[in-house]
């Protein structure tokens, strides 16, 4: 493998890794938001006062 081919490969790996990091990071953020909502809404629904 020549130098250019190695660089090409590294750029593809970087692009795919960045894509997955952003997408999964956002999904995790949504999951945390979802969990926080569940936690915050639980006491008020149990306690009507």
């Amino acid at each position, binding site marked *: 493998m020549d130098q250019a081919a190695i660089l090409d490969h590294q750029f593809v790996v970087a692009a795919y890794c960045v894509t997955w990091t952003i997408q999964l990071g956002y999904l995790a953020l949504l999951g945390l938001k979802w969990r926080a909502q569940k936690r915050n*809404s639980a006491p008020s629904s149990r306690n009507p006062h």
Partner: protein
Amino acid sequence: MKKFAIGLYAAITVGLMVWGFYQAIYVAPEEQTMHEAQRIFYYHVPSFMVAFLFFAVSFAGSIGFLALRRGHPDWAQAADAWALAGAEVGVVFCTVGLITGPLWGRRAWGIWWTWDARLTTTLVLWLIYVSYLLLRRFAAGPQMQTLAAVLGIFGALDVPIVYMSTRWWRTQHPAPVFGGGPDSGIKDPRMLHAFGWNVLAWLAWGLLILGLRYHVERRQQSIANQEAQEALNA
């Protein structure tokens, strides 16, 4: 039943993502001029396609909110939740496109960025929707949703400009892959399949997180209403 359907959809989406990755890396042949770096295309272009679709969802939601806010406040809140979900998930996909683009450009053109029409209008689009999200996050008061809806409509007007930019102006960015003249289109069927599978996979993934974001926002609205009611009753 609903949980099962969502789980099944998520499983199909993951399967599509794996299949799309396999097609892009192992099945699609290496392009002759850009070599392996061209494989970034299979993530870069679908990301923008999905981003534009979700900005259209935000546009429709914003119009819906403005049209329904007086007559049908409940429907208007649902429209507003779609507008916010579309904008936020659209920004995620647009961010992916704006990062993978320079990575590809560095190998194809030798530069990370250039202020040509396609890149500049796309950056402006991203900045408008980031402003939309900042407005939603930090502004308060009854006018916030209305202002956000107007900004959401204004931002969506940039989408056709981004799409047409490579046709209207001479740019560094390549001509459109589809509908860009007699030489456009993907000639190799293996490349076309890899592209098609990745469009499908990212669309399925995008719809999954769009639905999740919508439900988070609807729940947030319901909590806010409940808290307001409790404050009134106290």
